[in-house]
């Protein structure tokens, strides 16, 4: 097991009250596995990602739980202690390459900085490795001398991914790396990420709001709602038989370009403000199949034939009215 997250909670410490953005999240990740994390804005997916990478800054803080990476709990380590793990064993690809890359430094200089900061000082080694990773993502090494503005959006994202691979990490955490790209570039970047993963064997935690994007690439899928795990299971299974009404709603919110044109409904209402969390099930206000208990009882995660789901309708008790509603 590469990564084990256990009971992780993250609070934003505000003047009025603390807001819990990530609530008691647990999951594990094997070597070479691809985990997709999907959810809407404000569901806590980006906060979770920052917590995994120990990149949270005040007012956010980890309130409880552990992040065990290759046997060590990263929570509470100092930056100095973390620096031996960061980039070498675990790297992060940020959402917007335009903001994450330094605009006044060439790509090569930024690669050099990263390698030096994490202990590689030989010029030759830096030069050859930089050219190698850039080649891996399909960019000519001549671009080591280019500045970010001279690259297209797709190339910048590729350069970010190359940079994350400088030290052949075991885990790459990606925060919507394709969201600024259009469909064609998006598709080709996803295929390339998957190919790199196959050849190099690293594990990926991929955060996105677009679940159709990861549908063909991730091994397991975690759906988050209002800071909690709503559903976690094998990607294909989640797409074929979504258990949680929220997952179902998300899937039904995607128009298709094939098949008959059917009217879609989406999900009524909008995601809750985490400072005023609904009682009981956090989804009950928007849920089409909510029943009497939902506003009162907060559901726990239940194992339903290998898929974890947080919904009071599970475990299935075959009560007539509830299964009819499905």
């Amino acid at each position, binding site marked *: 097991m590469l990564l084990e997250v256990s009971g992780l909670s993250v609070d934003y410490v505000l003047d009025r009250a603390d807001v819990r953005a990530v609530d008691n999240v647990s999951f594990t990740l094997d070597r070479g596995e691809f985990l997709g994390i999907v959810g809407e804005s404000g569901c806590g997916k980006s906060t979770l990602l920052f917590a995994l990478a120990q990149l949270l800054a005040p007012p956010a803080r980890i309130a409880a739980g552990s992040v065990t990476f290759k046997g060590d709990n990263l929570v509470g380590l100092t930056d100095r202690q973390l620096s031996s793990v960061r980039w070498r064993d675990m790297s992060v690809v940020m959402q917007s390459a335009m903001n994450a890359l330094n605009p006044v430094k060439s790509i090569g200089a930024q690669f050099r900085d990263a390698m030096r900061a994490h202990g590689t000082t030989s010029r030759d080694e830096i030069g050859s490795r930089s050219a190698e990773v850039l080649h891996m993502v399909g960019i000519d090494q001549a671009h080591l001398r280019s500045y970010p503005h001279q690259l297209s*959006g797709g190339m910048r994202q590729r350069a970010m991914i190359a940079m994350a691979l400088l030290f052949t990490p075991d885990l790459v955490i990606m925060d919507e790396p394709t969201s600024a790209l259009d469909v064609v570039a998006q598709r*080709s970047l996803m295929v*390339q990420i998957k190919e790199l993963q196959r050849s190099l064997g690293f594990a990926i935690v991929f955060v996105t709001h677009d679940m159709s994007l990861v549908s063909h690439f991730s091994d397991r899928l975690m759906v988050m709602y209002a800071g909690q795990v709503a559903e976690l299971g094998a990607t294909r299974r989640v797409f074929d038989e979504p258990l949680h009404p929220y997952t179902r709603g998300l*899937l039904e919110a995607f*128009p*298709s*370009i094939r098949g008959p044109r059917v*009217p879609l409904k989406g999900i009524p209402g909008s995601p809750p403000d985490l400072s005023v969390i609904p009682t009981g099930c956090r989804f009950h206000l928007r849920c089409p199949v909510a029943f009497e208990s939902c506003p009162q009882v907060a559901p726990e995660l239940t194992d339903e034939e290998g898929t974890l789901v947080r919904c009071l309708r599970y475990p299935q008790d075959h009560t007539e009215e509830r299964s009819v509603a499905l």
Partner: protein
Amino acid sequence: MTTPTTPTAPTTPTAPLLRAEHLSRHFKIGGALSKRTLHAVDDVSFQIGPGEIVALAGESGSGKSTIARLLARVYQPTSGQIYFSQGEEDPGTPLSAMRTRRARLRYSSEVPMVFQDPFASINPVFRVSHGVLRSLKLHRPELSAAERQAEAARVFEVVGLDAGMLERYPHELSGGQRQRVGFAQALAGRARLILADEPVSMLDVSIRIGLLNLMASLRDTMGVSILYITHDIASARYVADRLIVMYAGQIAESGPIEEVLADPRHPYTQLLVSAVPDPRAALSVDAETDIGEPPKVIDPTPGCRFRFRCPIAIDQCSAVTPELTLVGAREVACHVAQSGAEVKAFTS
């Protein structure tokens, strides 16, 4: 809110609401001494009928937003003309002939824009009623203050917002609600054609459908036309009647959306359709992925602009710019497709 009915393509073409002919917009780039020109939109002609949603799709940099700005009169065309019709019998007045302030005001109230970012397009220091009331005051000066309030409440209800929302501040509304405010502002001026530039791309997936359904219901119940600018082909198919695919400042293919998507003839349309992620489809990671990039159209030479990425390009493609020509029910700008040969550049 009504669900979208299967749209019927307008078969008897009455006068189009808006007609663009040989529209071009070029930008000078570089320093004062530079002679380089970016051809953002090059010789584009299209029509938008009454009560029709036309989707304008393409990559970033393909010129789709420039077209919206040309239609909104934010930019003046470098060449070409836009005609706007005032009724079924009216063949259309060129925009360049609208010289009086009154004519321009009338045009901008009938052809309003709805912007991409609902967080940036509403003034945060005023209540959301501010924009609607201002628009009413400017465009419909005959209304009294009480009538303006009533009208604002009416358009809010049309877009699915409670009239009580008028007194809220933008920060109290969700993204989807704000975008509905954008449509309410557009309707307040008695819109006939709404220019919607990526109106749902910043919204959460679960909210998008509601907005798309709203667009369809505005068309079905009020007969409003919408130019829906998007890079999301699936959502375009959901609401639009016709599709215009842009590539590098020119139209690659256009026609009834079902026909174009079911059987795309331009290699670029095929690429676009094949790249759309479909969660319902079986897992397939095909080898033939295109890693090309959209070109910057600076001082273009003749020839098809897609030829550098096109796997089926022929000699003619680098010599002659293909014209948009009717092939079956759609128009295609591709030499191979026009020759009658089957185009299979990218399969989905």
